[in-house]
């Protein structure tokens, strides 16, 4: 049976992701040139969040806010694990459980950032 995470669990993971990013001065400096809006939505429960990256600072908003440059879609459990750093995005992206819509170069950059957040 497929596990389901709650909206609050996804929120908690995303907050950890945002905190991990914002604590990392080097990552923030690396992304000063990259202003992007990322919509994160679950496929199995009603859950949407928006990550906003502006001038190197990352913030988290509830729901869909503004026009997204990237849309990250997956099952709730996968999203919770992914943003908590318990799994990396590559395998679920390759096997189709994780979908990321946007420009190819933005997708690669988001992948690099997520790999760097939990390893720094």
């Amino acid at each position, binding site marked *: 049976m497929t596990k389901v995470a709650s909206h609050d669990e996804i929120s908690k993971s995303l907050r950890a992701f945002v905190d991990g990013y914002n604590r990392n001065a*080097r990552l923030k*400096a*690396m*992304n000063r*040139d*990259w202003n992007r809006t990322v919509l994160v939505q679950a496929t199995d429960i009603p859950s949407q969040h928006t990550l906003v990256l502006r001038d190197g600072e990352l913030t988290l908003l509830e729901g869909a806010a503004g026009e997204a440059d990237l849309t990250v879609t997956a099952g709730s459990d996968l999203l919770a694990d992914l943003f908590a750093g318990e799994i*990396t995005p*590559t*395998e679920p992206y*390759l096997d189709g459980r994780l979908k990321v819509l946007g420009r*190819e*170069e933005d*997708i*690669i*950059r988001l*992948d*690099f950032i997520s*790999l*760097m957040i939990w*390893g720094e």
Partner: protein
Amino acid sequence: MKRVVSVSLGSSRRDHEVRTEVLGIPFEIKRVGTDGDLERAVELLQELDGRVDAIGLGGIDVFLYVDEQRYVVRDGERLLAAVRRTPVVDGSGLKNTLEREVVHYLAAHTDLLPPGTKVLMVSATDRFGMARALGEVGCELIFGDLIFAAGIPHAIRSVEELRRLAHRLLPELVKLPFHLLYPTGRKQEEIDSEKAAKFEPYYREARVIAGDFHLIRRYLPERLDRQVILTNTTTPEDVALLRERGAGYLVTTTPVFGGRTFGTNVLEAVFVALLAKPLPEITPTDHLTLLRRLEFKPHILPLAGEIDESGQP
């Protein structure tokens, strides 16, 4: 006659074929590009398997070495798996030895790499041997891996930082389709002018631009300031482009056959054909011995200055 074929994910417009002699043995060396088509490359490899003396894989790295750690690129593994009988190499076995030799040669015998020279390596995770050698001869290093692979404007400025990031990122990145990380097919023919302008300060900051030529070319600024280009795979058109943009010298790390340099994978495949022993038994010492027998030196081409009728400065 020994036959070596390089199957490349790069552009078919760079295809080339030469007949030459290497240490007195006649060779037919051919390069076939598949324009980024991985399936076509697999088919071609299957057709060649058992019919040539050695195969090189170009336009892709199968193995990335960071110190003693080896990372295997998943798309490259697929290509390797298509060949069962003929020895197949991607150049990485030779690259470390060859490029270290070239760097130490340039430092000892030319004035192109004095201590303190600022070097931009557009990508170093595919040629860690060169990166370490440049550090050993006292160069100031700028590694562009994050800049050119991911568009992240962060110059890595030490081998230690490069090593740390590589060990962090490569275990995952090698699983991605290779074309997401490196220009294949038609992208090899195009200069990305927008990014070239954005990345120009990194080129300007350095006296030497080193590493993979497809990356150097894709982000080549409109104007260079007599920088030295240290690379391997170039065609006469590439040389003309570098001259037009104002490069000072072109130093190539593989021999010139029929007016152009081939990739390290081709040279490694030639070595495999010459050595005629099983791949796992071939050592860096075998490569070094062959390089000495070939009296191999890097090819240094001055690009700046007056051009005579032959097109040479």
